[in-house]
């Protein structure tokens, strides 16, 4: 039933604005259509306009929301499998599925009303996620399993402590989230990883809020309206972050037109501009190859790269970055290629620009650290950057080291100019 109330007219206005923008060719129109469609159920769920719906309508909203979630997740799974079969990248769909399931699980936990328990369980889930991430990085080895178990233990232990000392737990969690935002440079939404925001930062903030609500409200000392406002604000904040990220990504795409793309059938190899490609192909508007996966080992810009390496080219046809299929020695540096994707970058002249080291290396006499999950999370990115002339530009130290009579600690990030002179030192704040 359509209620011709304030929400109805506001939704009509949003739709009209969306229609006008669509006619003018603005993609943001889609956002307005979605907003108009979801306005009423969203307001009801956040408790803002309950007077405009009775209990049966709310029940219908809840049940239809559940069914919609199932359909969206199943559709995303199907679409992801279809893309995999075509040799395309399904990562964005995996992210959609993960976010949908995580949002469903967290919402269910919060709505149970046992906030301290909800905070602890959310922390445990984040721990499991981080452990899986680490296991993918280190590999299924005794060390990997021990580290993963330690991570799960830390998060579970922290959750248990949070239940007992919720205020302290909440403050530490919020500080941790703030540090993570600063460390990862997540306020620059264009380069930010939406996954880190939605699967790490957001759950930490929600867990902290749960502990705070449990601390100050107990199970019944805080009004339902206050609870709704607190968690509604969180949800609104998450929605704003997602929207800003998407808009900035769209803006980035508009400034950097993607050109065309094509997907080769599974197993098909095509020689594109002299390169044996398979899977997904992307081209610049000028027709030159932008991205492809090597079907067999090939030498590009003088660098032998294994089959399966995903290579990105600039408009002049030079390799500007790649995801190595396996750990590979490039220009003398042993670069990471396994796991969830370490980007190895190149200058236009073919010199390596960015590497994630498999093992510690002494580069230009400087002891540079290898990549490790813990070191990156706690101490900032460990990517090693090089100048176009091949000299070391910046890296994180693997041990205490003295440069130009200044002593730096292990984990400090040091930076040099193209002549090898120390120009700046920070404690691991360089962006990935």
């Amino acid at each position, binding site marked *: *039933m359509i*209620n011709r109330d304030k929400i109805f007219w506001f939704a009509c206005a949003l739709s009209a604005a969306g229609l006008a923008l669509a006619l003018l060719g603005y993609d943001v129109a889609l956002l307005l259509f979605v907003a108009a469609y979801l306005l009423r159920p969203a307001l009801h769920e956040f408790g803002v306009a309950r007077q405009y719906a*009775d*209990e*049966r*309508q709310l*029940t219908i909203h809840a049940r239809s929301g559940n069914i919609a979630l199932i359909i969206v997740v199943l559709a995303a799974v199907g679409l992801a499998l279809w893309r995999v079969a075509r040799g395309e990248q399904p990562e964005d769909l995996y992210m959609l599925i993960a976010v949908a399931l995580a949002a469903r699980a967290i919402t269910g936990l919060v709505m149970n009303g046992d906030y301290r328990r909800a905070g602890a369980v959310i922390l445990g889930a984040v721990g499991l996620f981080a452990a899986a991430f680490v296991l993918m990085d280190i590999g299924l080895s005794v060390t990997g399993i021990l580290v993963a178990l330690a991570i799960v233990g830390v998060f579970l232990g922290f959750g248990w402590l949070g239940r007992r000392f919720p205020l302290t737990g909440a403050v530490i969690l919020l500080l941790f989230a703030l540090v993570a935002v600063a460390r990862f440079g997540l306020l620059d939404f264009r380069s930010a990883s939406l996954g880190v925001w939605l699967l790490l930062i957001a759950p930490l903030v929600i867990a902290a809020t749960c502990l705070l609500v449990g601390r100050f409200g107990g199970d019944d000392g805080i009004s339902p309206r206050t609870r709704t406002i607190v968690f509604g604000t969180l949800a609104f904040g998450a929605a704003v972050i997602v929207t800003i990220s998407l808009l900035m990504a769209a803006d980035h795409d508009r400034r950097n037109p993607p050109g065309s793309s094509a997907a080769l059938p599974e197993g098909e190899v095509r020689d594109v501009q002299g390169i044996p490609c398979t899977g997904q192909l992307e081209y610049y508007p000028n027709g030159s190859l932008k991205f492809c996966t090597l079907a067999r080992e090939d030498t590009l810009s003088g660098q032998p790269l294994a089959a399966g390496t995903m290579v990105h080219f600039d408009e002049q046809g030079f390799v500007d970055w790649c995801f190595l299929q396996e750990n590979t020695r490039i220009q003398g540096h042993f670069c990471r290629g396994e796991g969830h994707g370490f980007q190895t970058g190149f200058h236009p002249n073919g010199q390596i620009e960015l590497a994630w080291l498999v093992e510690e290396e002494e580069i230009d006499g400087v002891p540079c650290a290898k990549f490790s999950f813990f070191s990156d999370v706690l101490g900032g990115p460990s990517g090693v950057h090089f100048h176009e002339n091949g000299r070391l530009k910046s890296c994180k130290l693997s041990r205490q080291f003295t440069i130009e009579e200044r002593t730096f600690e292990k984990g400090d990030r040091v930076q040099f100019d193209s002549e090898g002179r120390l120009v700046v030192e920070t404690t691991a704040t360089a962006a990935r």
Partner: protein
Amino acid sequence: MKTNLRKYRFERGELSQQQLADMVRVSRQTIVSIERGDYSPSVKLALLLAHKLDTSVEQLFQLEEGDYDQSR
């Protein structure tokens, strides 16, 4: 669940569905759904309906034979 809502609505001055809906602040469609047996109201709404129709919840709504089986 069996309902006598329609019967009591007529017995209390032949109230229309819209009038009853306005009295308990729900939509007319909700009254329609309750009378059809498509929707089971909350305890609060059932008590409100009974109050407005000057009767009891037990008079308005009764479980049927099959409903008892569901509880096993």
